[in-house]
């Protein structure tokens, strides 16, 4: 890992406008509300949060699959927001996606060989033969048998399909791979195979990952740094070990405390902090701190003033008026 910043997002906002509950009234849902982050070359940045927190929308905004409402995204120092599709193309080659659902993300009518060859053909990389050779090579890289190139997606299991999705994402030797819940549809034994594969590929191909997941164990396992999202905002971001061992935001603390654990040692269990209520509607955000209606430590200040994301320990940023584990 180096300190070179590959991707930098500054104050990214994404809103969706929809017909509101009342007739004739439009409602605006802020899915991503002012996110700033950096992805450094060679690292894995994990983004964790519950459903609806905006983590997938954020990922899509970062790779310009969705236009941002405001804010900027820089990739290798080049500002991507506002570029035309044609201008984006050379950058897109360098950032590839792995999707959550290995059933929906592969076209059932095409052979897996064709699916993996697509990025190469679209970008006109090499001759037919060279492309065929590269596809076979990619199949070997992700642990699939190249003799199955002519088969269709339905002939593969979930774990194998996810390997095909990974092979497709690697076809153009990207710098950054954005994986949106790549293992959440898989059984635990297969999930472990795919996670190990991703770790091996990162090492051999010097990849940078932006890894989005709701499973806290998975995120800890893969990440060098972790960002915790709540209601479209990053509430805490920093070194993975530090966040898991000494979370500073009350939301992170509660989230970690309620993950069901195997108590296979005599170490005392974290005290469970069960937060009540549901995540608020992103079109009707609370005033002040977004988390205050559910926060056990909320005060008057939290109701009125929105906390800034500030660096409380080196490289560890928190948006909270009453952070934990500060000393």
């Amino acid at each position, binding site marked *: 890992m180096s300190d070179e910043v590959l991707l930098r997002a500054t104050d990214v906002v994404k809103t969706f406008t929809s017909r509101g509950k009342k007739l004739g009234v439009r409602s605006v849902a802020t899915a991503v509300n002012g996110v700033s982050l950096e992805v450094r070359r060679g690292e894995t940045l994990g983004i964790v949060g*519950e459903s609806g927190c905006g983590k997938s929308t954020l990922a899509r905004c970062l790779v310009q699959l969705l236009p941002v409402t405001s804010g900027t995204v820089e990739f290798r120092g080049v500002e991507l927001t506002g570029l035309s599709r044609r201008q984006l193309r050379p950058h897109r080659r360098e950032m590839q996606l792995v999707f959550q659902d290995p059933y929906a993300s592969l076209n059932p009518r095409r052979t897996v060989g064709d699916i993996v060859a697509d990025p190469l053909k679209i970008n006109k990389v090499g001759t037919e033969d060279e492309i065929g050779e590269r596809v076979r090579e990619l199949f070997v890289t992700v642990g699939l048998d190249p003799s199955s190139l002519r088969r269709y997606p339905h002939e593969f299991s979930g774990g194998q399909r996810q390997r095909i999705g990974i092979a497709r994402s690697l076809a153009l030797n990207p710098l950054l791979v954005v994986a949106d819940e790549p293992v959440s549809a898989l059984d635990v*034994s297969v999930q472990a195979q795919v996670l190990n594969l991703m770790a091996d590929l990162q090492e051999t191909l010097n990849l940078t990952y932006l890894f989005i997941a709701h499973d*806290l164990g998975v995120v800890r*396992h893969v990440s060098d740094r972790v960002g915790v999202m709540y209601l479209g905002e990053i509430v805490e971001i920093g070194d993975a070990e530090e966040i898991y061992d000494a979370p500073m935001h009350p939301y992170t603390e*509660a989230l970690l405390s309620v993950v*069901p654990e*195997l*108590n*296979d040692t005599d170490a005392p269990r974290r005290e469970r902090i069960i937060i009540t209520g549901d995540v608020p509607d992103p079109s009707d955000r609370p005033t002040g701190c977004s988390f205050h209606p559910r926060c056990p430590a909320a005060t008057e200040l939290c109701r009125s003033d929105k906390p800034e994301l500030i660096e409380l320990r080196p490289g560890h940023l928190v948006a909270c008026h009453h952070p934990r584990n500060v000393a």
Partner: protein
Amino acid sequence: MLSVRDLKVSFATRQGELRAVDGLSFDVGAKEVLGIVGESGSGKSVAMYSMLGLVRDANVSISGSVKFEGREILGLSDREMQRVRGGEVGMIFQDPMTALTPVYTVGWQIVEQIRAHTEMTKVQATARSIELLGEVGIPNPRSRVNQFPHEFSGGMRQRVVIAMALSCNPKLLIADEPTTALDVTTQAQILDLMERLQQSYGSSIVIITHDIGVIAEMADRVVVMYAGRPAEIGKEIDVVRYPRHPYTWGLLGAVPRVDSKNSRLVTIPGTPVSPLDVPDGCPFAPRCEYRMTICDQRPPLHGSDDHLDACWLSDEQRLQIRPTPEGPEARP
């Protein structure tokens, strides 16, 4: 309370016989929480559904014995089964959206169930449903009772399903992946609720899940299933700390941990066997790194009375492969 013996469920398909459950036996004691864990296709849900007569497939054949409070319930008539289901045995399903019908209010659905099993009047049943919604932690139950499922969030819907399952004071609650569709903070709320209700109602619970963490949190005893067969049965603490079956070793090692950094996950090579093609011997043998010649024969479920496993490895071999941690609780 519940005693299952040699339950077998198979489906006749064009590709041959699909053995979904192949010789499952377990007991659930009074006030006990039994966890059944396994990956998709291990037969854990089919086993429960077939016990309760919920598998309506014309091609199914079910054999074995399922005794609920000493009474055989396998093969009861539909009418008799309906009295058991929803009455003495409550059920919680995985997906709270499909478990509730979208076209009736939640109150209507709870009242219907109460009236199907008790002599209560509509007014009494409505009062009871409001009380139940309050008990499962739904704010303003008096007004929420008249709302439709789509007006509730996922966690709140699952609370409604739980309220429904509890409406007739069941002695046994069967929960099939009750928190799989939920976020971790909501999951914590629901598991906490189930624990509290289990204490106040004194029901036994069978909880089916693929998440061994949920089992560790909730269950007193665990059944680990693989390819329709039990691989290991024992007290939760024994199975999690002193697992005996190679499949359980793999399963436990494959879970990325929140409490400590694990550098590399243990993987089980290959993929789960197809239930169309379960080997005659040990079903795990094709993926097992400790495979021996004897594994071509089906291993019996054996061991000391409260910790059983189906594996041919001897105790010495297991100790060599996986030394038990030293300490007062160390097992032979």
